[in-house]
């Protein structure tokens, strides 16, 4: 695999930044006195941790969209399912400290007059089980969804629409009280994770560090996949699907593999997100969330991984600032950003920057065609 280096300059820089954040931000927050100029204030730690979880979601999305040409408008669903799995664990950890003091049942179940724990809540009092489910449930959903969609050769904008429908359907389902996931209010009022108080600053710092490490790990995993021969096949599918098929590759199996892996990563990101923000509710399934994730990747530069993560971080930092200053205009700004990116820097920040610096080793960045919905690349058309 001579042409693809496992880690290029941008990748090493990215890992260096993420790993130093993992060490320096918790250290600064916990060890430095609050009046020090280098002290990271308490409120900032979970906020940055949230951005890092979003960056992981962006990596997952870039893997399917940037490299395989599958524009998923429903990746927020996998993120939210991972979040719910973690939320269920955190609910079980509340124990008898809830408002109703029921040692087994979460408050919302007591409120609904439920007598016993539904079967699908069993096991979630164990951290390892919840973690496993945060990966397995999104993975299984993606597998079933992808198996049906890719086998039927649903591609392009049609696939995007059904991914959107999937997350919308899940949102409606999770809004219902009798689904058993807390309905409209979702899961919140968490107390402890692994016996550490979720409100404690040290726990928040540890969660931040864990998220940064998970982001670095996901980056390495994605990079390994896209630089493997499978990664080349996947890019081949993105650029000339029927050529790949006539070479003897079962395109649907490749799409399914990448889509499922991506959903699992999104699930992990969601599981790391929930303890830091302290709540998970059905609004995480809103189609708009998934679309926002697509914008992060587009802004950062799809098909670059580093760009996706950077885009997630930058757009969310912008969102935090903007919604503080001009809250009513944020959605216009986001839409404007998307339009501007599409028109002015179709390769995103990272793509444009590396073009500008001229450091782009041609084969290192398999940058795709600039059209955003390139799920249906130019196919050879039969003459008759």
């Amino acid at each position: 695999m001579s042409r693809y280096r496992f880690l290029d300059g941008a990748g090493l820089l990215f890992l260096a930044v993420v790993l130093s954040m993992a060490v320096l931000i918790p250290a600064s927050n916990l060890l430095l006195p609050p009046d020090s100029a280098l002290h990271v204030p308490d409120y900032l730690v979970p906020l940055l941790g949230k951005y890092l979880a979003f960056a992981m979601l962006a990596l997952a999305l870039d893997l399917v969209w940037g490299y395989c040409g599958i524009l998923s408008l429903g990746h927020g669903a996998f993120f939210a399912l991972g979040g719910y799995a973690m939320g269920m664990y955190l609910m079980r950890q509340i124990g008898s400290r809830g408002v109703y003091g029921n040692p087994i049942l979460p408050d919302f179940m007591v409120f609904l007059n439920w007598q016993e724990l539904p079967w699908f809540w069993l096991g979630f009092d164990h951290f390892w089980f919840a973690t496993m489910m945060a990966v397995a449930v999104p993975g299984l959903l993606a597998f079933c969804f992808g198996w049906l969609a890719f086998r039927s050769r649903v591609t392009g904008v049609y696939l995007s629409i059904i991914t959107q429908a999937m997350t919308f359907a899940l949102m409606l389902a999770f809004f219902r009280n009798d689904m058993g996931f807390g309905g409209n209010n979702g899961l919140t009022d968490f107390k402890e994770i692994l016996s550490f108080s979720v409100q404690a600053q040290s726990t928040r710092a540890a969660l931040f560090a864990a998220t940064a490490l998970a982001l670095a790990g996901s980056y390495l995993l994605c990079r390994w996949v896209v630089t493997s021969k499978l990664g080349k096949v996947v890019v081949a599918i993105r650029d000339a699907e029927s050529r790949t098929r006539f070479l003897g590759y079962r395109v649907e199996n490749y799409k399914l593999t990448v889509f499922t892996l991506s959903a699992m990563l999104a699930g992990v990101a969601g599981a790391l997100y929930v303890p830091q923000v302290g709540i998970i509710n059905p609004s995480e399934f809103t189609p708009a969330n998934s679309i926002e994730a697509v914008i992060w990747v587009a802004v950062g530069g799809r098909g670059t991984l580093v760009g996706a993560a950077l885009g997630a971080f930058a757009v969310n930092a912008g969102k935090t600032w903007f919604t503080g200053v001009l809250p009513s205009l944020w959605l216009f700004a986001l839409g404007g950003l998307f339009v501007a990116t599409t028109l002015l820097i179709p390769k995103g920040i990272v793509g444009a920057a590396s073009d500008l610096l001229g450091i782009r080793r041609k084969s290192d960045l398999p940058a795709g065609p600039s059209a955003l919905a390139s799920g249906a690349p130019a196919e050879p058309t039969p003459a008759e």
Partner: protein
Amino acid sequence: MTIGGPVTNALLYLNNVSVAFDGFRALNGLSLSIDHAEMRAIIGPNGAGKTTMMDVITGKTRPDAGEALFEATHDLTRLDEAAIAQLGVGRKFQTPTVFDMHTVEDNILLALKTDRRPFPVLFSRRTRQEKERIDALLERVRLTGSRDRLASELSHGQKQWLEIGMLLAQEPKLLLVDEPAAGMTDQETADTADLLREIAKTRSVVVVEHDMVFVRDLGVKVTCLHEGSVLAEGSLDAVSSNERVIEVYLGR
């Protein structure tokens, strides 16, 4: 398939194949048989069914009726594109279709006959034999000097040759080649004819072509299709002097 042994010794055997799209009969009782290591040129006006025939052979289109057998035992009407490609049928598209964002070398690498399942592919590393295969194929399609360039940077003719190189990397028993001379210079056309003739020493090749000079250059048996079935078959001279062929090509 009939019970009691193969019905044919041909490598490819199409019998009475019909395909209709929304009432339009693209193929109408087409029968064709290609022998081992035979090269055949297929000619015919637009709409004669040439591309649909290739679609049927490669599994892209399911025929409404008729038989399509490969090596007398494999029923092509029941297999998908990937399975047929793995059996040993390679297809070159009319417009050169290569992986633009991959290097020339990687284009060949992806086409090499290896395990096609996702997980073995994920863990595979290029072996020395594969490297040697790639070197030999690049030499053969005269792209050794361009091996590190992106396929998108190649000229039209080079892309055509790269695609032929990818076909050869699959080690197919049958190559289906759709208009290989389209958009090529005279020299490139002559070179392509040489290359195809050489390939046909060991493999069967079916060439669909409009360019009569090129077909003459190939010097092989010609099948003329019209309205989805065979109109005439034989040497180019015999076919081109056939009255019905002249009528079809020149209009009545």
